[in-house]
């Protein structure tokens, strides 16, 4: 009996020793777990019903259960050192399965580490992004104050969420309303945080209504993507013409307008904001939500568009040395820019690389992941202002090329954008001209991809020579394909080639490719090709050594790769090395919408990329003159 007693007593003392517990608070849901001293974070999570991914079964062998210890310190384990980067370790990331907890800590579990988490992949390229937006909504039930517990409403709310940080702020417009709002809602409702600021309190559970918009502000086109932040999904997309087109179709004309008119920048900005609001309205109407459900707008654009968007004068981007006002990312209230979203909504504008290489290029680099891959990758975003990006084992070089709007159908005699009635494909077979027209209607004009095809095919048929001249086939004595010869006519813009005769066209008169069109295309493609050539030279990479050429931009996707090579727009590499990556700038913006880590990457890309200013290069003009020519090509016999 006494022995038993003694045993019990002894056991009790042992238990007392081991019963020493520690508290772990999990974010963002604010759950608390008490576990034994030296238990693991994984155990604690399971205890309170938070499921962490652990493909290896919690043995430290897969590195998937990353969590962030942001209050308190946990010793690094051997497994941590294997699976986590130095930066992650410094930030307090640990593997949940091996992290032994010996004091109270607060842990944030990234969405990627949660078992239920959904990995999102924005349009194809790059690594899946873990859902960790800057906007968070939580539904909370707060204990009302009492005589025993007279904590302030704000503290009460934060304590309920148990964020474990002291640096939270409250929006100053919400502050005077907070007490009333909480009481009217019986201390139950949805809080919205943007960054570390409490922005809104809404009665009821509105956590399924948290949206953001990724905006791609192009010189010619605006594209907005609505993103459901809860699901981490792209839900709607809409586009508009940039209203600044009426001030000129290239960047210089916008700069000129802003610089030479009183309040010019503000006028350009207001027009832009008006159209962006229309676009946002279209997005929310499609999704049947309200503009107030949008908490954030993430913007990518070239540096000029970026400056105008933020009401900064682009004047100095138009003069050497092209220094922007700011290169870093900018965060500011959306209402200050005249954007109609949630009254407390924020704007995040991507960082810029240089005067003519902006956040859109950063977006392309980010979403294509080229800076994280070994090898030599060339990414080309073809637009009015083309961006050429080269990554050699992660070393980034950028250049910009003033291609002008020919690829968008502007300055082309019967050029049009890629809409109904535009010729988008041209093929010449056995002396016949085959056309593909958008929406299968009689052709009304030609868009960028059709223009490239037409010139490439006419080049192949020998109708356009190496220097770009339309050759008169009958004069050259060719009789094999009379149909082709008969299509060459005289026109006020020099010779012209009839793509669609009047009776087959959807307009009064035929659809033509004129000599001047060929010349415009030559200038545009030479600008891009020269930038590529100089960048490759600078990066010490031969074109043949490129692992891939990635074509970005709305237009790039519709272009025929063989035709692009044939006209010398991109270097002659095997066609399978050329890949379309869609609207990669917008994809980059979308990644930044859902992931704070992606924003950090974007900022690091903008800092690290080295910009090559082509116009000061002594070899620019010579290369440009060479690039005006079309490459030698195999020709079909006509």
């Amino acid at each position, binding site marked *: 009996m006494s022995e038993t007693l003694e045993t019990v007593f002894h056991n009790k003392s042992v238990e007392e020793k081991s019963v020493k517990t520690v508290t772990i608070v999990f974010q963002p849901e604010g759950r608390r777990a008490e576990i034994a001293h030296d238990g693991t974070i994984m155990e604690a999570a399971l205890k309170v019903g938070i499921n962490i991914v652990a493909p290896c079964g919690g043995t430290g062998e897969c590195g998937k259960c990353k969590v962030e210890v942001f209050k308190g310190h946990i010793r690094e384990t051997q497994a941590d050192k294997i699976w986590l980067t130095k930066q992650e370790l410094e930030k307090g990331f640990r593997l949940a399965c091996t992290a032994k907890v010996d004091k109270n800590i607060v842990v944030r579990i990234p969405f990627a580490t949660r078992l239920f988490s959904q990995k999102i992949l924005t349009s194809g390229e790059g690594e899946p992004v873990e859902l960790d937006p800057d906007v968070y909504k939580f539904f909370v039930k707060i204990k009302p104050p009492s005589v025993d517990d007279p904590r302030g409403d704000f503290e009460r709310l934060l304590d309920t969420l148990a964020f474990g940080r002291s640096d939270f702020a409250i929006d100053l417009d919400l502050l005077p309303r907070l007490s009333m709002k909480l009481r009217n809602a019986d201390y139950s409702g949805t809080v919205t945080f943007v960054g570390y600021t409490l922005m809104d309190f809404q009665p009821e559970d509105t956590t399924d209504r948290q949206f953001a918009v990724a905006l791609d502000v192009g010189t010619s086109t605006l594209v907005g993507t609505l993103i459901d932040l809860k699901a981490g999904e792209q839900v709607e997309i809409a586009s508009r013409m940039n209203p600044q087109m009426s001030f000129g179709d290239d960047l210089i004309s916008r700069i000129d307008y802003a610089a*030479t008119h009183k309040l010019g920048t503000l006028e350009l900005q207001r027009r832009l904001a008006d159209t962006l609001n229309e676009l946002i309205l279209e997005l929310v109407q499609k999704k049947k939500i309200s503009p107030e459900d949008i908490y954030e707008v993430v913007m990518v654009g070239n540096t000029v568009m970026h400056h105008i968007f933020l009401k900064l004068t682009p004047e100095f981007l138009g*003069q050497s040395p092209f220094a922007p006002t700011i290169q870093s990312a900018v965060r500011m209230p959306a209402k200050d820019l005249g954007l109609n979203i949630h009254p407390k909504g924020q704007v995040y504008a991507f960082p810029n690389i240089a005067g003519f290489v902006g956040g859109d290029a950063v977006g392309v680099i980010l979403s294509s992941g080229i800076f994280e891959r070994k090898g030599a990758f060339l990414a080309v975003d073809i637009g009015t202002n083309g961006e050429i990006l080269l990554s050699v084992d992660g070393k980034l070089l950028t250049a910009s090329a003033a291609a002008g709007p020919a690829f968008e159908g502007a300055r082309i005699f019967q050029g049009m954008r890629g809409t109904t009635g535009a010729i988008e494909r041209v093929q010449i077979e056995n002396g016949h001209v085959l056309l593909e027209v958008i929406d299968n209607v009689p052709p009304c004009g030609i868009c960028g991809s059709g223009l490239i095809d037409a010139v490439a095919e006419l080049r192949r048929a020998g109708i356009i020579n190496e*220097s*770009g001249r339309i050759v008169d086939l009958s004069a050259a004595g060719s009789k094999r394909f009379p149909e082709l010869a008969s299509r060459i006519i005289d026109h006020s*813009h020099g010779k012209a080639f009839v793509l669609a005769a009047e009776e087959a066209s959807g307009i009064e008169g035929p659809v033509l490719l004129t000599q001047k069109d060929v010349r415009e295309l030559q200038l545009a493609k030479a600008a891009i090709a020269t930038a590529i050539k100089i960048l490759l030279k600078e990066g010490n990479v031969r074109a043949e050594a490129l692992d891939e050429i990635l074509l970005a931009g709305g237009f790039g996707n519709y272009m025929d790769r063989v035709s692009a090579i044939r006209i010398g727009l991109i270097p002659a590499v095997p066609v399978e090395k050329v890949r379309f990556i869609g609207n990669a700038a917008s994809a980059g913006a979308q990644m930044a919408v859902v992931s704070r880590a992606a924003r950090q990457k974007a900022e690091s890309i903008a800092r690290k990329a080295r910009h090559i200013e082509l116009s000061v290069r002594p070899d620019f003009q010579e290369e440009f003159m*060479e690039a005006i020519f079309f490459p030698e090509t195999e020709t079909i016999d006509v």
Partner: protein
Amino acid sequence: MVAFQKIADSIILGNAKLARDLTEQALQDGLSPQEILENGLIAGMNVVGVRFRKNEIYVPEVLISARAMKAALENLSPMLTQTKVKPKGKVILGTVKGDLHDIGKNLVGMMLEGAGFEIVDLGIDVSPEKFASAVEQENANILGMSALLTTTMIGMKTVIDTLAVGNLRDKVQVIVGGAPVTQHYCEEIGADGYAPDSASAVDLVKALLDSK
């Protein structure tokens, strides 16, 4: 014997190799560098200029022709220097401060060179001071300034003012050009002449020198 017309045609067509070969051959045939330049290269470039002005051809072709001319000139230049052909005049060229766009300015330079003028090219992003000191030192007849942007175009006036301050304005005739520049602007800032394109620039320079 190589016909001058053939050389001219090679320039008009922009066939650099042919232009170089024909020039070489013409030299071997004993034609003087001066004749080849005048009757072959310049004659060809003149046709290019006229066609360009009439909108029959566009910038790429002018560039292609200029490139052919440059190739042919490489053969001729050493000999032209030897024979000490007296240039028709001396022209200082430059793109104004803040502006790096020089394709137009270079075209003007090539056309003028082809037309027998001596060119002092100050390059791009040229400060008013640099223009002024070139005017002071070079004893040139003409100063030509180019700008592509309205934002940099205003620098032309600064240059003219700087010349005036240094008492250099009378030493030289000032001509201006570039996309945003107009005859009106030329008069407004007190320049002596404006040309809308490189071919007209040659005519303008000739006319200004003749009127002196």
